[in-house]
Every structure is written in structure tokens, then in C-alpha cells.
């Protein structure tokens, strides 16, 4: 009797097959995933490295932006100090009251005294319009106050010097094209004046006002809801 029917060739085939199965199986189970993860990590590394390489240029860009910002801000703050009243609308109500004071008390006398200080005679009267009364409707970016028409009298040179002097006035003023009439030194110039104010800082939230119909507002104890009173017993 020959015993087992297993031949060498069978062993070779089975052994080879088992090895191939193990190689393929482990490759797909372990090795391939590892390669995938390594490739992903490499891609992340490349991306991050590309960002990192830009560090010097980004730092330079930041330094330039900061420098430019400092220059522009310093210039603007200089104008705020010399040309703008201290009005801020972070609290809109307080800003509005400050604007009332500016338009109702400060600006008029300043404007009225300026022509005489620059050597010409003011022939017209200065009228500053009243400030807005709704804090939520004020444009907090730029306030424009049209002051109307100025009529001044003087010599030709004095009038030109007076027109130029508005740039030294302690508010930001736009003067319209001046019409000249008459003869020097009794010449008359007429021009429109508009005052501009840049409030400082950012505008705050709108002011909640009584009567705006906001739901959920608290009331005084004992005060019932609005509406007709409940019908009592007859």
C-alpha cells in the first residue's frame, strides 16, 4: 500500500497558493492602507510646507500693512483732533445730544467769527440747522451740515486769502464755488458752506425707544397689558 495520496506536486501547489494568498491578503489588509495613509500624510506635509514657505512674505506683508495702517491712522487722528468735535455714536443717544450741542451752541459762533478773523466782513447771517432728533436715523459714518450761503466783503486778495483760510478752520468745511461781484476793495464774495463731521469710533446698536412696539418689554408691577379694560359686572 502506498499510504497517503499526497504528492510533492500537491504540496508545492498548496504551499505556493497559501504563500500567495497570505502575501496578497496582508498586502491589501495592511500594507496598502499604510501606503495610502503615508501618501495622505505626505500630501498634508507638502501643503503645510507650502504655507510655511510663505512665512517670510506674509510677515513682510503684515509689517507693511501695520506700517500703512499706523501712517493712515495717525493722519486721520490728526484730522480728528484738529477738525472734528469729539462726537461718538457708540451710545447713539449721547452722540445725538453731543451733536445737538455742536449744532446748537458751538458751530454757529465759530462760523460767525471766522470771516472777521480772516480780514473780511460778513454781510450775511449764519444759520446752522437744528440737529436730528432721532438717534437711529443719524448717519454715523459722515454727518453733513449745510450751513447755507455766506456773503463776505473785502479786497480781492483778502477774499482769496479768506477762502483759503477755511482749510485752517477747526471744523472740516466745504466751500462752494465763490461768486465775486463788485469792485475791489469793496468786492463781495458769495459761497455756500457745508460742515462735515466724522464721528469717532464705530456706531453702537440702535436705541430701543418706547412706542416702537417691541414685544416682551417689561413693565411696572400692577400695570396690565395694553388694550381695552376688561368688562366689569354691570
Amino acid at each position: 500500500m502506498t499510504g497517503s495520496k499526497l504528492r510533492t506536486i500537491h504540496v508545492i501547489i498548496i504551499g505556493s497558493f497559501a504563500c500567495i494568498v497570505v502575501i496578497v491578503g496582508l498586502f491589501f489588509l495592511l500594507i496598502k492602507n499604510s501606503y495610502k495613509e503615508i501618501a495622505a500624510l505626505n500630501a498634508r506635509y507638502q501643503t503645510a510646507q507650502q504655507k510655511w514657505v510663505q512665512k517670510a512674505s506674509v510677515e513682510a506683508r503684515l509689517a507693511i500693512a501695520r506700517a500703512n495702517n499706523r501712517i493712515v491712522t495717525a493722519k486721520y487722528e490728526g484730522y480728528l483732533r484738529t477738525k472734528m468735535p469729539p462726537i461718538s455714536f457708540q451710545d447713539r443717544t449721547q452722540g445725538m445730544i453731543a451733536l445737538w450741542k455742536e449744532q446748537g451752541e458751538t458751530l454757529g459762533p465759530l462760523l460767525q467769527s471766522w470771516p472777521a478773523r480772516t480780514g473780511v466782513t460778513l454781510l450775511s447771517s449764519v444759520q446752522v440747522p437744528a440737529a436730528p432728533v432721532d438717534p437711529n436715523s443719524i448717519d454715523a459714518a459722515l454727518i453733513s451740515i449745510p450751513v447755507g450761503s455766506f456773503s463776505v466783503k473785502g479786497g480781492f486778495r483778502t477774499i482769496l486769502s479768506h477762502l483759503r483760510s477755511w482749510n485752517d478752520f477747526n471744523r472740516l468745511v466745504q466751500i462752494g464755488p465763490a461768486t465775486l461781484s463788485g469792485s475791489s476793495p469793496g468786492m463781495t464774495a458769495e459761497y455756500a458752506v457745508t460742515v462735515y463731521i466724522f464721528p469717532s469710533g464705530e456706531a453702537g446698536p440702535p436705541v430701543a425707544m418706547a412706542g416702537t412696539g417691541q414685544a416682551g418689554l417689561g413693565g411696572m408691577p400692577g400695570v396690565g397689558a395694553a388694550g381695552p379694560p376688561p368688562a366689569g359686572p354691570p
Partner: protein
Amino acid sequence: MLKINLLPAYVYERRRVRRAAIGFSLLFVAVVFGMLAWWAVLNSKQKGLQAQVTDMEMKAQEVARLEQEAQVEESRIPVIQAKVAFIEGLKEYNLQIPKLYEELAKYTYSRILYRSVQPSGSQLTIEAHARTLGDCGRYLMNLYRATHLFSSVAISGVPGWPSGGGGGVSELPSGFSFQVTCALVQQIAPPTYGGAGAGAPGGGMPAGGAPGAGPPPGPVSP
């Protein structure tokens, strides 16, 4: 001498099978071990790479933070720059009319009396008085030379004969009134906030005058 093997073939076959089985078993173990070793090497490489990536990503985040900071700084500039540009544009605009009048004075013949000068955005209207037609003509010739100020100059109201005023040219000693309309080379417009100034910076008007232009500014009494 002749050797004769009388053992049956299956005896050798069994040995060969056993050897082959042992060999393949060893090969199998070696393959498994090799694959696991390969995986371990890759794993170790992956861990090293992971640490590098983490480090590099932290650096990249730092760069991204700097970039964001730069963007924030840059975004602040235009807002303030617009305000500064508006203020400076306004100051420049306020100087444009005085500059224009000064230049006009340089080109104004001294024997001409101005009654009024009225600028608008793109033109200048002058009401003037002259004693003679010659004075008026000389004045007009001066204005024609002011090409840096005016792109066109038009005159009206020059009298014929007999003039509407009753005196005609023969009464020129008392003079006549006329109107000159000049189109400005550089439009005078105020700047607008939030955009570029509409009124371009003056740029300065060249000095100099016209022959016969009198130094005294403005009108001269007839």
C-alpha cells in the same frame, strides 16, 4: 558494480512530500513574518511622518494666523484711507477757486472792470466792462492764451453801431458791458466720501501771465 534499489517508490515520495511540506511551512512563516515586518516598517515611517506633519501643520497654522492678521490690518486701511482722502480732497477742492481767480487775475487786462465772476462746475461766467473795443479785444486775446485754464472762451455783448445802449461805438469813453463764458479745462467738483475724489487735486496752475495783464488783482475801476 551495479546498485539496485529495491525499495518501493512511495517510500521516497513520502520523504519528498515531508521535505516539501516543511520547506513550504518555513516559507509560509517567512512570508508572514516578512509581510508583518514590512508593515511594521511602514507603520514606523507613518508615525515619524505623522509627527513631522503635526509640526509642519502647526507652523502652517502660525502662517495662516499671520496671514489673517495681515488681512485684518489691510481691511482697516481702506476705511480710514477713504476718510483721509475725503478730507484731503475737500481741502484741495477749497483751494481750487482761489487758485483759479488768481490765475484769472494774471490774464485780466488792467483796463477791464469785472462786474461779477461766477464759477460753476465746468465753466466760468464773467460779467465785465470795457472802455473801448480795443481794451475788450486785448482782454479777450489774453484769455485765449490761458489754455491751461480754459478749453474755450466765448464772448457776447460786444456792441455794434449804433449800440443798443444808445451811444453806439462813438460813446466808448463811457464803455460797454460784455459777458465772457469760459469752459474750464479742469472741472471743479467736490470729492465724494467713499470713493475717489471727483475733484482731482489741483496740481497747481503754472505761474505766469499774459502781456498787458495788470498785476492788481480783480476789477479795476473804469
